[in-house]
């Protein structure tokens, strides 16, 4: 038994001794194969890494090209050293995205503030106002491409006119407005047969008295009311801007001008916004509107306003050689609107021409028929001449100068005649979305049997589009 065990152990020892060199050679061979495999895999990894870098570079370029105006998308903030082990995404993730690639929602807006100096012939004061000629506002514009030819969209535009230049006056110089007001709350569908809009928005005739290529619109255009419409003309005899009357019961006249306040029933005299006007169609309202496709640079439009008012308009805008030309005419029946109770129908229009030299001229006119022989029959005309300089003070700027005149008749009382003379200057910093403006305007109101003092005003401010 012991012998056999010794034999067995000896055989095992001999087997191990004989096979050991063979096993070592096999392991060495296997190691070499593994090394070769590792080298091969390393080469593959290097190749894939290069491909990944190339793809990432192309993706980033595509992202830059797709972003607005070729601007690069915001970059992810660099991580501190040591934290870079986590692979950063090739392109930064978008904060908000849609599953539908054919939609967009854009936010834009502006702030337009100014100081308004007014001399009403009796007193002078300075007012801090929102320039209502292009009020402070914010806009949300949505658009979706329904097909190759059809587009649907939404528009929400609200303004906040704190101390608006169209409402402040001698008795109320603060706390006017300041709440959100509707401008546009509409949806539309647009395609090869035209555009249909539904909701609160521009009626077909809105802005048809306000076509203006002068580049000085923010300082002053045909809508005089928005410039300083709230100020009342001072009666030269009483030296007051309002009529001081006795209150209800036995309350006597208090000798103060406090319109609508306390026991007094004082009423403001005729205001600039009543004496001067531009009969600019039916403004904005709840309506359904149809615009035709453009044909030979013409576009026709019609709208039907809630309550029964309606209008039609024709627009033209074209560039002919060295001239830019824009024009519009409109006919409106505002008789059902409570704000136009005295007007039966009105006809108005405007045109503006801008030469490549910068010279420009603008004209607007309109007339309305009163409902009864006792009603006023307002009419007006407006002219503006100006010059628009490019890069006058610095590169990428425009500087516009203009003089304008408005003649408005029977805005408030039969036989009234108003004359306005103005001078405006606007400096536009194109890269910063900023307009700096100043305007001087002189107002005169002639009325049979009453003398009013003239009103002088200067408005200086800035509009910044954000």
């Amino acid at each position, binding site marked *: 038994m012991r012998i056999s065990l010794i034999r067995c152990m000896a055989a095992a020892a001999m087997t191990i001794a004989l096979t050991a060199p063979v096993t070592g050679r096999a392991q060495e061979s296997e190691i070499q194969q593994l090394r070769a495999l590792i080298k091969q895999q390393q080469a593959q990894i290097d190749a894939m890494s290069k491909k990944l870098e190339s793809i990432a570079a192309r993706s980033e370029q595509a992202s830059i090209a797709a972003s607005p*105006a070729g*601007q690069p998308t915001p970059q992810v903030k660099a991580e501190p050293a040591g934290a870079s082990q986590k692979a950063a995404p090739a392109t930064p993730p978008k904060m908000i995205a849609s599953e539908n690639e054919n939609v*967009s*929602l854009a*936010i834009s807006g502006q702030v337009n503030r100014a100081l308004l100096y007014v001399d009403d012939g009796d007193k002078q004061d300075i007012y801090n106002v929102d320039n209502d000629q292009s009020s402070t506002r914010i806009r949300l514009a949505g658009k979706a491409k329904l097909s190759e030819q059809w587009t649907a969209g939404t528009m929400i535009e609200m303004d906040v006119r704190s101390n608006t230049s169209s409402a402040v006056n001698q008795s109320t110089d603060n706390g006017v407005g300041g709440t959100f007001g509707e401008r546009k709350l509409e949806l539309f569908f647009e395609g090869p047969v035209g555009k249909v809009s539904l909701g609160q928005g521009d009626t077909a005739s809105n802005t048809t008295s306000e076509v203006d290529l002068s580049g000085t*619109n*923010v300082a002053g255009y045909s809508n005089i009311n928005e410039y300083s419409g709230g100020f009342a003309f001072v009666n030269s005899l009483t030296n007051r801007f309002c009529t001081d009357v006795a209150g209800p019961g036995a309350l006597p006249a208090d000798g103060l001008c406090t319109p609508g306040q306390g026991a007094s029933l004082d009423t403001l005299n005729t205001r600039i916004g009543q004496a001067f006007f531009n009969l600019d169609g039916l403004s904005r309202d709840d309506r359904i509107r149809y615009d035709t496709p453009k044909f030979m640079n013409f576009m026709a439009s019609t709208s039907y306003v809630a309550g029964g008012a309606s209008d039609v308009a024709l627009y033209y805008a074209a560039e002919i050689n060295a001239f830019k030309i*824009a024009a519009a005419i409109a006919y409106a029946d505002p008789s059902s609107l409570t704000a136009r109770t005295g007007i039966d129908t009105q006809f108005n229009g405007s045109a503006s021409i801008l030469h490549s030299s910068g010279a420009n001229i603008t004209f607007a006119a309109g007339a309305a028929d009163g409902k009864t022989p006792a009603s006023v029959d307002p009419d007006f005309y407006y002219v503006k001449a100006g010059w628009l300089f490019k890069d006058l003070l610095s590169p990428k700027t425009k500087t516009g100068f203009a003089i304008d005149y408005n003649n408005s008749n029977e805005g408030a009382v039969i036989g009234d005649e108003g004359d306005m003379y103005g001078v405006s200057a606007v400096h536009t910093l194109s890269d910063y979305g900023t307009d700096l403006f100043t305007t001087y305007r002189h107002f005169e109101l002639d009325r049979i049997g009453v003398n009013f003092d003239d009103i002088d005003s200067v408005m200086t401010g800035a509009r910044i*589009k954000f």
Partner: protein
Amino acid sequence: MKSRIAMLLLAAGMLSACAAKPLDYHAPGEIPNGGGLITGKDGEFVILRK
């Protein structure tokens, strides 16, 4: 004479119309075209886009 002048004006108008290029007119009271102080050259933030 008047008819000739009218014809001349009509012909001039038609020729001008043929040479006319579309103009993207922007109403004066609206937010102006072009860039913004914060939004840059595009003039608006486009917050929804794939």
